[in-house]
């Protein structure tokens, strides 16, 4: 760079001029790689261009190059805080194409595990957001709560994050015999923790002042931007996929859809706090009515044979070989399946051409739309408010960038 350019730049007074500031892509307060190209007037944000894509790994391309079952581990890595909901969403789309109905016990297990994941998602979001506002204690409490639930997920699925729990027509493992009791005691512990968090945060002067009225979005704007989940509900729209288009038997459970009024960061916080209580109610009802029976169908077109058949009969071996090498043959067609993810409507649009591989597997990532609206939410707020506003979007890099 020429010396006179530098001299010219030194003459510009940032107080008088509009200052351009790049925040990220690696910034300690942005948990996720993301870049904000800000235009600042003093400390006020006039414009913010959000850059995403740093964690793009070609999820949709990879899915097209494997079998349907091989796509399930990729879905774990979308929203890696609540991987189970991604598993369920993807497999429900595939099952609709296959015309497969899963056994009742499997449906209820999927509901239980989805709600456990949703609580984990909200705990992570609120814990990290409150930590950034200085409430370190709350962060520790919430991570402790998440740890309780991840222990259960680990006991059931064998992994904490990369769980790949669903299969076409079922789930990989049944719950362990002590899971219901473990979940009950974890929920008791979690309620006590959340009660403490509520006392520490909800009426805390500092937290309240930092959250109220910041990043607000009206209901009409939120709908126009395609926001869903807690962001939309905080603006007062009671839209929840579990209520509007129930899947996996959600219509049988009694729960409420909490909504906010102002659509600001404080309402987003309250909606998530209340949703955790509603998720716990669903889990308790589901544990009460957990039916007995198999956790998977036995349809040989989609489900692997038992190991003793593989090792002791030629038919079993061939069946296993064909399912592994060619993949389950999903009938041609296309389907869009939406589920309520931690951040909102998580949609899978899958196209099958009848071969063993997905022809197209598109994910409608809820936080991608939240990030698209973030620029508008940020207009007019202070630099210090960027971090809580971003925190309430709960961007998960894996899901946003795919």
């Amino acid at each position, binding site marked *: 760079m020429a010396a006179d350019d530098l001299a010219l730049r030194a003459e510009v007074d940032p107080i008088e001029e509009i200052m351009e500031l790049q925040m990220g892509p690696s910034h300690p307060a942005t948990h996720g790689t993301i870049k904000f190209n800000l235009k600042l007037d003093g400390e006020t944000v006039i414009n913010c261009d959000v850059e995403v894509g740093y964690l793009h790994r070609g999820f949709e391309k990879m899915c097209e190059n494997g079998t349907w079952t091989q796509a399930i581990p990729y879905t774990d890595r979308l929203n890696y805080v609540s991987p189970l909901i991604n598993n369920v969403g993807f497999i429900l789309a595939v099952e609709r194409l296959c015309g497969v109905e899963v056994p009742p016990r499997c449906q209820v297990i999927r509901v239980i595990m989805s709600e456990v994941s949703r609580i984990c998602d909200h705990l992570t979001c609120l814990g990290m957001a409150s930590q950034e506002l200085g409430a370190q204690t709350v962060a520790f409490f919430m991570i402790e709560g998440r740890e309780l639930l991840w222990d259960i997920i680990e006991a059931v699925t064998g992994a904490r994050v990369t769980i790949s729990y669903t299969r076409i027509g079922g789930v990989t493992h049944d719950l362990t015999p002590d899971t219901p009791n473990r979940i009950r005691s974890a929920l008791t512990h979690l309620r006590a923790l959340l009660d403490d968090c509520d006392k520490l945060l909800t009426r805390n002067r500092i937290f309240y002042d930092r959250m109220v009225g910041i990043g607000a979005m009206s209901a009409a704007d939120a709908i126009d931007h395609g926001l869903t989940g807690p962001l939309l509900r905080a603006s007062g729209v009671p839209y929840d996929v579990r209520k509007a288009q129930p899947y996996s038997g959600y219509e049988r459970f009694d729960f409420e859809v909490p909504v906010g009024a102002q659509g600001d960061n404080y309402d987003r916080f309250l909606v998530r706090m209340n949703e955790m209580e509603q998720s716990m109610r669903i889990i308790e009802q589901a544990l009460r009515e957990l039916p007995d029976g198999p956790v998977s169908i036995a349809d040989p077109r989609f489900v692997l044979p038992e190991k003793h058949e593989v090792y002791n009969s030629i038919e079993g071996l061939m069946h296993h070989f064909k399912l592994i090498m060619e993949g389950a043959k999903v009938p041609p067609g296309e389907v869009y399946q939406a589920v309520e993810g931690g951040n909102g409507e998580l*949609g899978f649009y899958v*196209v099958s051409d009848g071969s063993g591989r997905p022809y197209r597997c598109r994910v*409608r990532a809820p936080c*991608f739309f939240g990030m698209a609206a973030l620029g508008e939410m940020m207009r007019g707020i202070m630099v210090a408010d960027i971090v809580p506003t971003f925190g309430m979007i709960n961007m998960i890099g894996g899901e946003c*960038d795919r």
Partner: protein
Amino acid sequence: MGLSADELLAKCREAFGERILDAHQHCEDATVVIPRDAALEIFQALRDRPEFGFNMLVDVTAVDYLGQKPRFEVVTHLHSLSNNHRLRVKIRVPEDEPWVHSLVPIWKGANWVERECWDMFGIRFVGHPDLRRILMYEEFVGHPLRKDYPVEKRQPLTEERDPIEVGWKV
């Protein structure tokens, strides 16, 4: 649930007549295929007329049917919060003229998904206010979700950019 897929499709046929090129339902999902030229009018009507009430744009994406003519389908998913029904709208786009009208004037939420569709499939959205790549970087060559883009293809390393020289668009 609101209207069933068949009822919704009957309503579309009634409202748009011959401008609906094809309408079918599969696995309870309603799909209409519309011509590119009439797309903006139809989308506007789908949002504004109360019997449709599609106030939320759920998703915009494309599917590459390599070897078929026309090659691309731009697929838009709509959802009506008031009526609680969903509709999939497809526009067929030929390979040599890969463009459709942008939906940003109708739904603000179309902005980023259309940028992604441009980035991944190379389909231009005419009337889009800011059609840049979004997940890939500016120097990236090609459109990775096209079926003729090899999965193992590597891209050359790019020059280091001076952010101030580049003048980041804000």
